[in-house]
């Protein structure tokens, strides 16, 4: 295997990995404020992308994406208010089951609205065939968009959670809801906000990856599985780690393809998920003690 080829596998891994990462970030936001794994996260991506695709028929691309993100954000909030809030003193498991039900419901609704055909947004810059050469290998401009948007989202979230009052309030709720309430934080709205935030980020992610992966009504679930694996791998609740974990999984898959039959690729994520759950349930990037504290 010569050098350009190795770089090409690397770039391929980064392409896929950046997509996984951006999905995983959405999981983490809701998890860190509520402890729920939102299995409808994949559907947020598809709703966002589908809406942007429809809007793009009448308005410019950036506006279509902006509107799609806003509408999906509102939908995410509505979903929490209508389905999660009324039962929110229930166990986490029950809430997770509700999100699974919601994901099926949203998927079927999308089938009715946008039918079964794959759709797509145009490439943000250039066309299908424009690429950049890196050490004799090539990468699509859109992949750079995916990477760039992931980076901006993670940076934005870090700033939001660390330095703004609202973000700190959300973290406080995650830490100890009772104490947060006593400090005058409206915990119900914090949960709603976390759903809105992850829906909005999901929609944006869906739009950015749409030119590369195409968008079909039932694509959410497979994406969510990969995103979930990555979120676990990085340690639930840790967005920065999710990005690293996403790229790691992408690279791992790419190099498995390079050495073994490509059919084994699908097994990689599952094997990684099992190994992490058995040997390092807190994720790769969380120190064990902290993980244990959190679990307690």
């Amino acid at each position, binding site marked *: 295997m010569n050098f350009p*080829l190795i770089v090409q596998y690397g770039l391929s891994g980064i392409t*896929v990995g950046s997509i996984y990462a951006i999905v995983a970030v959405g999981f983490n936001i809701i998890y860190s404020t509520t402890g729920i794994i939102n299995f409808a996260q994949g559907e947020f991506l598809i709703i966002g992308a589908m809406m942007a695709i429809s809007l793009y028929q009448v308005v410019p691309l950036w506006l279509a994406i902006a509107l799609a993100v806003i509408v999906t954000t509102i939908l995410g909030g509505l979903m929490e208010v209508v389905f999660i809030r009324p039962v929110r003193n*229930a166990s986490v498991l029950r809430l997770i089951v509700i999100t699974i039900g919601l994901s099926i419901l949203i998927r079927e609704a999308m089938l009715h609205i946008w039918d079964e055909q794959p759709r797509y947004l145009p490439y943000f810059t250039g066309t299908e065939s424009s690429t950049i050469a890196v050490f004799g*290998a090539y990468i699509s401009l859109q992949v750079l968009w995916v990477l760039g948007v992931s980076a901006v989202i993670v940076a934005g979230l870090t700033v939001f959670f660390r330095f703004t009052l609202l973000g700190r309030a959300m973290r406080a709720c995650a830490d100890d809801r009772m104490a947060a309430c006593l400090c005058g934080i409206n915990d119900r709205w914090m949960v709603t906000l976390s759903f809105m935030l992850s829906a909005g980020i999901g929609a944006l992610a869906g739009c950015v990856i749409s030119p590369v992966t195409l968008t079909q009504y039932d694509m959410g679930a497979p994406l969510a599985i990969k995103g979930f694996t990555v979120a676990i791998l990085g340690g639930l609740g840790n967005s920065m780690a999710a990005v690293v974990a996403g790229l790691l999984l992408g690279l791992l898959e790419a190099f498995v393809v390079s050495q073994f039959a490509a059919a084994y690729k699908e097994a990689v994520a599952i094997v990684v998920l099992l190994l992490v759950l058995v040997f390092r349930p807190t994720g790769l990037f969380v120190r064990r003690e902290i993980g244990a504290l959190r679990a307690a």
Partner: protein
Amino acid sequence: MEMRFVRILGVFVVGLALIGSGCKRSAPTPAEKAPAEKAPTTQLPAAKPQAEAAPIKVGAIFAITGPASFLGAPEQKTAEMFVEQINQAGGVNGHKITLLIKDSGAKPETAISLAKQLIDEEKVLAIIGPSTSGESMAIKDICQEGKTILLSCAAAETIVDPIAGYVFKTPQKDSDAARRIYETMKEKGITKVGVVSSSDGFGVAGAKQLAGLAPEYGITVAISETYDKAETDLTGVLTKLKGQDVQAVINWSIVPAQSLVAKNMKQIGLNVPLFQSHGFGNIKYVQAGGEAANGTIFPCGRLLIAEVLPGTHPQKQLLLKYKQDYESRYKEDASTFGGHAYDALLVLAEAVKKAGSVESEKVRAAIETLQGVVGTGGVFNFSEKDHNGLTKDAFEMLTVENGKFALYTKK
């Protein structure tokens, strides 16, 4: 506590109701539509002296939703349209056709239960479909044992080889598609190719044909890889092909990955000709591939190029009529896949006419004697040994020019 439980229950019931209505999506449409549209015609029974014969029950299993909806949706629409046309013209030998369309979502296990239902409960004369090869293989034995005619709309050759008495198929053979691809490669002087295929029935069968036929044409398959049918990125697999310095890539699948292959090849700078299977015959794949789809070469039935066929070609009239009917009714481009369902119903109708009976054994035997039936896929000549009835001449090599299908000509 009870209150809360009731609420959860409510949420689930609402969810289930919506899902339920989603699944039934395809089923009610024909039933609802048919009476409304047929009402004026049934008011005037033009010239039908004989007493109304019992209707023929025909089942149809199509992948109307799911990953193979590109196939199933046009098949469903075509079948509805064609049955309506047949019934308006007085049916087959005076028998009206009652079509029961089921959506399998491209899942073999769903196809199995639907087939059992159609055979055991509905007691249909024949089943049209399924859309995909995996599903067709899954119900091949069930139809044979249930003595119910199966007219598959899927491509894999294994459906009719080895032959099962009751099982037929209308799409062209995949070995013939492979032959046409290799012939074209030979003309272009290509000798070393890489194959990628989807890990479903269609892809697996195609990859096997390509591997088996390659030596005959002096072509080496340097590498053959499969990918998951829900794959969203193929750059990894294609990089592997790039590493083998292949002179051309053949992709064999029906899933949207067909468009991804074209895009991803361009993305990683793998600038060799791309050949696709006859599964590429839907303009939507071309649109989804954008600029990258230009130059793709693939074998296909003549439907897509009906307009440019010489006036003397036996299929021309039929193809133009089908295309016009379909496009004016559904406001979308006709694809070769819908044509497979058309052919399946056509073959069944011709066989019923020839047999002069609606007994499954007699109709089955009649199909084996059908000769020169002009369909959308080609001219069918069935026999006891050939349950497909088409030769490789049913294919034409096409290419994509500026986002449109065009006849491939040697340069």
